């Protein structure tokens, strides 16, 4: 009975942590979106391998200091997913820009 109550409590805690994670992911995605716009203005590519490597190295370092059950490789794999999605956000935005440009060009009779 006590074990069941504990399980319930831990699951509630996970639900609350998930809410925080999703909020943080949302903030991160908004940043990635803004970065995408700036990259576009500066004419830089969506995929910047050096930056992705730096992000992974950074999160590995942060994780190592915590010393929890997630090892560095696990954190790197999770971040690969997160960056896949960030790249996708930037790609969708670039596609939209290209479409808008094509549309305004054709309206302008270019």
């Amino acid at each position, binding site marked *: 009975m006590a074990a069941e109550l504990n399980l319930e409590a831990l699951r509630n805690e996970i639900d609350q942590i998930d809410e925080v994670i999703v909020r943080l992911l949302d903030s991160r995605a908004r940043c990635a979106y803004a970065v995408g716009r700036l990259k576009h203005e500066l004419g830089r*590519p969506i995929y910047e*391998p050096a930056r992705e490597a730096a992000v992974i190295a950074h999160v590995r370092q942060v994780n190592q200091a915590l010393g929890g059950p997630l090892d560095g490789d696990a954190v790197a*794999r999770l971040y690969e997913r997160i960056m896949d999605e960030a790249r996708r956000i930037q790609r969708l935005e670039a596609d939209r820009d290209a479409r808008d440009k094509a549309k305004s060009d054709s309206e302008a009779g270019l």
Partner: protein
Amino acid sequence: MKERASDTEVEAVIASLVEMGMDVHRSTGASRIVLGVVGGGKADPRLIELMAGVHEVLRITQPYKLASRTFKPEDTIITIADLRIGGDEVIVIAGPCSAESEEQVHVTAAAVKRAGAKILRGGAFKPRSSPYSFQGMGEAGLQLLRSGANAHDLKLVTEVMDASQIEVIGKYADIYQVGARNMQNFTLLRELGRTRKPILLKRGIAATMEEWLLSAEYILAGGNTDVILCERGIRTFETFTRNTLDLSAIPIVKELSHLPIFVDPSHGMGRRDKVAPMARAAVAAGADGLIIEVHNDPDHALSDGAQSMFPSQFDRLMAELRIIAPAIGRSICLEPVARRGWAR
């Protein structure tokens, strides 16, 4: 990616995939990196395969659309009057290789009907390997075949070799057959796509299943949705048989496509004594139908005599198939007329 692919190689591949407008999912495993690629771009997988560090490129989606089960999950059932092809009943097509004479067509048609066949086969325009072999009777042969089919309440399938024959064959036949040699005659396939009669599409002698389904796609893309695939043997190093009958095509095609699949054990084996075992195996493997050469006098046939069965052999085969089909939940010609033939 290869096990020893460097970071630079991986980065170069991701960069070019992103440039193509693809979304990349990078997964780092214990020994190698897998890149999942999603997108509507027209990337040529071979271009990626050529890049340094790439181990292999596996395509997940098929190049054919209309023929694939993803597009249409339920089986296609083709209806010709009261006949349903691709349903529970295994449909047997039988008859001579070529129409030769009125007597030959009528005697053979009567024999195959009695045994339980539903469709008469027979060629009027024959694609022979040698230009000096018997080339068929032409329209006169079509007339003979149609009258033989009508006299015994059979449907008729005959081969169309060229787009110029579509109209004349359409006057007589219920199903157009496209032979193995014409499987990749794309102009013919396009023209047949415009017709509204079922097409029996034989597998090319050296065609992969994907190429075969792409040929079906040509017909489907023209708006003709009634395509029956027919395995007839592929060329291998084996010389004992005429071709190697690829029965593995049945379960594979059934998974990849919603189209019915038939098997032609006569051309696959090239010897009448080997036709029955392969016909039994084809039904057991799940074929929707068979196409078998039967001749009233095979030893004097003008073409393919060696692979044509005697009517008595065909009778026996049909009786065996009636035992096999129910084992996999199928039926095969259960009408009383056929039972009489079985008991004989």
